[in-house]
């Protein structure tokens, strides 16, 4: 009897597998095996006649076969449905037609890079502050250790509004305003617009953006400055970028440094962007000059600090491969769309 059942299973499997299209065939097979008079049903019916031991074995097997046929039938049925669906071309589409464009705008590339800068410094626990764009000469120069007759004033061509009032040439006056209002420790960045009366060309714009940084605390050293510069530029340009500090001069920091990164375009080999030097000068930096601390009433014997800053346009130009600073202010949609 067992053998008979196994044979039944094999033939049923074969028959189901052979069905190609017709749904009706499925029903016929169901009736043939599982119908009231079906081959498997029959066997189940005569179970009573068997010995209890046989009944157990045969009953189990017969039920197994019944379930298997059931399952195979329902799988076959799904398969047939899929087949029909596949061959039905009524709802066929030209999927190569364009999709509906999503009308999304774009942030200006300067905003994008500034956001990146803000996020990096926010993670480093810096606060973000702003200051006025029209400044007194005191905040823009004198408090920053740049008295009126200092040759350093020649470094920054200045727009004047009236005697003593200028368009700020740098974001550094924000340092003074923040220190006047707060006690250390301090950690800030101050982004914003700056103005210099340089003739407009591919690398000079009378309006440009800078970001300024200031850290004041106990035991802040030049080594910390180096570290923060390294972290910042690596986050902005990639983990493997090399940075270098070389001596420079700014009236409000001492020692002062120029912060350069290994040219991201030529990887330090020398190209037109880095003027064959392999390095891109990006930021000015240094330890806060004691005279600046004195101007805001901090005791330089108690506090030390560092400051840094640079042009945002230049960072964006390098990051995005933009070769002319004027593009930022022409607001040509064909440019703005690319960021």
């Amino acid at each position, binding site marked *: 009897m067992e053998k008979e059942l196994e044979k039944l299973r094999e033939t049923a499997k074969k028959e189901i597998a052979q069905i190609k299209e017709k749904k009706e065939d499925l029903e016929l097979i169901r009736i043939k095996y599982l119908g009231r008079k079906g081959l498997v049903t029959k066997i189940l019916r005569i179970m009573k006649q068997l010995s209890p031991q046989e009944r157990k074995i045969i009953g189990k097997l017969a039920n197994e076969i019944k379930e298997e046929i059931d399952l195979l039938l329902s799988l076959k049925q799904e398969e047939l449905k899929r087949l029909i669906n596949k061959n039905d071309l009524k709802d066929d589409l030209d999927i190569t*037609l*364009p999709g*509906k*464009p999503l*009308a*999304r*705008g774009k*942030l*200006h590339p300067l905003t994008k890079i500034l*956001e990146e800068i803000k996020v990096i410094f926010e993670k480093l*626990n810096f*606060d*973000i*502050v702003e200051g*006025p*764009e*029209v*400044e007194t000469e005191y905040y823009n120069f004198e408090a920053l250790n740049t008295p009126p007759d200092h040759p350093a004033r020649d*470094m920054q061509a200045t*727009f*004047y*509004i*009236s005697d003593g*009032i200028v368009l700020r040439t740098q974001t550094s006056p924000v340092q003074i305003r923040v220190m006047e209002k707060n006690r250390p*420790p*301090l*950690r800030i960045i101050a982004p914003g*617009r700056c*103005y210099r*009366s340089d003739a407009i060309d591919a690398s000079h714009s*009378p*309006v440009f953006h800078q970001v300024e940084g200031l850290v004041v*605390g106990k*035991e802040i*050293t*030049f*080594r*910390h400055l*180096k*570290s923060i510069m390294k972290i910042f530029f690596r986050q902005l340009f990639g983990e493997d970028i090399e940075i*270098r*500090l*070389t*001596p*420079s*001069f700014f009236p409000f920091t*001492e*020692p002062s*440094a120029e912060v350069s990164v290994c040219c991201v375009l030529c990887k330090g080999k020398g190209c037109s962007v880095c*003027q064959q*030097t392999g390095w891109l000068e990006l930021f000015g930096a240094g330890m806060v000059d*004691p005279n600046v601390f004195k101007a805001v009433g901090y005791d330089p014997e108690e506090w*030390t600090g560092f400051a840094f800053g640079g042009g945002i346009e230049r960072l964006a130009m390098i990051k995005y491969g933009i070769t002319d600073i004027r593009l930022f*202010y*022409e*607001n*040509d*949609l*064909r440019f*703005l769309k690319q960021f």
Partner: protein
Amino acid sequence: MKITYRWLKEYVDFDLSAEELADKLVSLGINVESMQSIGEGIDGVIVGKILSVEAHPRADRLTVCKVDTGKKEYSIVCGAKNMKEGDIVPVALEGVVLSENKLIKPVNIRGVDSEGMMCSAKELGISDDAAGLLILPEGTPLGKELKEVFPLPDVVLDLEITPNRPDCLSVIGIAREVAAVLNVPFKLPEMELKNTGKQIEKQGEVTIKDSLLCPRYLARVIRNVKVSSSPFWLQHRLEMVGLRAINNVVDATNYVLMELGHPLHAFDYDLISNHHIIVRRAEEKEKFGALDGVEYTLSKDMLVIADDKKAVALAGIIGGSNSQVNEGTCNLLIESAYFDAINIRRTSKKLGLSTESSYRFERGTDFEMAAKAINRVTSLIREIAGGEVVEGIIDQYPQKIVPQQITLRPEQVNRILGIEMSGKQIQVLLKRLGFECNSENNSNLKVMVPAFRREVSREIDLIEEIARIYKYDEITPAVPQWESLEYSPNQEFLLEREVKNFFVGAGFFEVINYSFSSEEEFKKLGVGEEFYYAKAVKVKNPLSREYGFLRTTLLGSIFENISKNSSYNLYNLKLFELGKIFLSKGNKLLPEEKKMFSGAVCGMIEESYWQKKSKEVDFHYLKGVLVSLLESLEIKNYKMEKGANLLFHPGQSARIIINGKQQIGQLGKVSPWIAEKYNFDLPVYGFELSMDALLKSQNLRRRYLSISKYPAVIRDVALVVPKEISYFQVSSQIKKTGGEVISQIKLFDVYQGKQIDEGYRSLAYSIVYQSKEKTLTDKEVNFIHNEVLQSLEENFKVKIRDK
């Protein structure tokens, strides 16, 4: 400032290529802006003499020259015009490679053999001068290689010297730095002049009338010089560093200026009245004719060098034409002085006159070098212009300058730099830079500042010097282990991010414009409009008229952006800018800086798409965007009042009012008369919002409102409304009457035309009735709905359509 590689090597011995030298200089804080090789094509070029110049038989423009190189005569065809028989010229024979890789080989030019080439300065890579042959000085030995006769090839380095390093404005200054960093000795040129005596006192006199502005003045007299042109090597060296050769005397003073960094001046001794130099302040409105051919009007805060009749030089800046060295000059008075830096700077600024001399004096010179430089230049003049030096020197030095001493605490060095350095190590480093140290009784150091480093006056200045010579690269970065600081979130920046991102999501592009405006722009936007003009802040020294003012609205530049983009055939534009406007509070005060959020749109709402044609932007599109913004900022109590300022069409514009009275912005269609001035092809709609007002009225602290569990009943109704009644009035009335049970009112159609009486329009509403407490029965809804309709009829004579 330019120096040359070979010139530098005369004073310091180093084994670095020009590129390596440049790297070292950068590491010291001296940026190298450019490097230029000079005389690259000089290899193998020899000195020859032209024996004859004859016309080429078959070419008008060419000549055939016989050239003697000492050993042999050559025949060379030449295209230049500036040579004559007897001239000494550079000759390139077969196999020589000139500048730009030009290989010389024998050729036949129109039937005449040419065995080589005579060269111009450009062909040798010496300068850009290609006008003719380089004519060498008479007596240059024939047959010698040019590079044996002249110090070439060489490399010119253009250096950027920061204002704090006047000591580096000379070849010697750079040599001193290179020697310090390499820890090798450097040498000064011979500056002793074995020439003492009192002879000079009989031949000249110096009186300093203002010793504050002129603490020191030295003079020497040289007799019987022969003024002519300088030797070729000197002329060439001056040209390489960017100075023009004039005559041997002036060139000598310029050479020493570049070499030692100390400005010098040579007067024609016989043109100084009574040979008496008087250093005094100028008379008010005193006229002074300078060497540059300009007559300057001086004031009494300026310092002049005069004789007892007239000013002969503007101290430290420029000499006078009335005493200048000329071809007929026979006797010289040489000046070497030390002037007050600030006074020179002020005079130079005031007159708009900057010279190599003023550039150095205003940054600070070396009062000891003044005495050495005068001896150096005197020797040089004697060497190249002949003459006899009158015994002795005048040295008026009424204000003795005391060298500075600074106390340096080694622990302060470490506190700033974060390194561990002992007092001994510090002493060694400082010594290399010329600073002598003595230990004080404690661990502190007493540091003597050399005369050439006058700007080093504080402990921190010394710390920078130590860091520089220790090298920044050697100071390793250390991640700060700082305690974290707490900041309250900056609401302003959060709002800015929110607003910008909202508009980007709505399809707007952010623009950034200059903060400048101009009279032309104010005129375009309407001069009559008080706001745009009257409060504008004027720039005193603008780049051009275009940038004469600070802007009082962002819309002017945004309108320019629209018309510019339209000219590139981009017509569907949605632009916004977030930036400051500036409103004057009078000349003495800082202006008010107001952050504005402004924008403009034109063209289609969406880019065209094959399934559905987009609609053009209009007032209600823009209103929809702004209202969505206000709602996303949870600003609820706003309303729109018809009409805005003159920028906008009075019938298609609105002021945005909050709290019933405060205007926070406006929007609308740009007035046709303004649109015309900007050449808009399509209607443009613009808006302005005050960021301050948004910041004050926003509510970013959101509260959850429970969602009703009970079913909603929707009643659609078409109302026939008299035209003078606004949508706002109708909707308010519905809400007022229905009360809390109305959870939503939605307008789904506006219609006027057929079936609607003249003077009326149809407003079709969906009103949603829903209670938070219970399921509303039909009866209850009907009751309220009828009440609503009745109240509309009573108040506004609203009828129900089709009923």
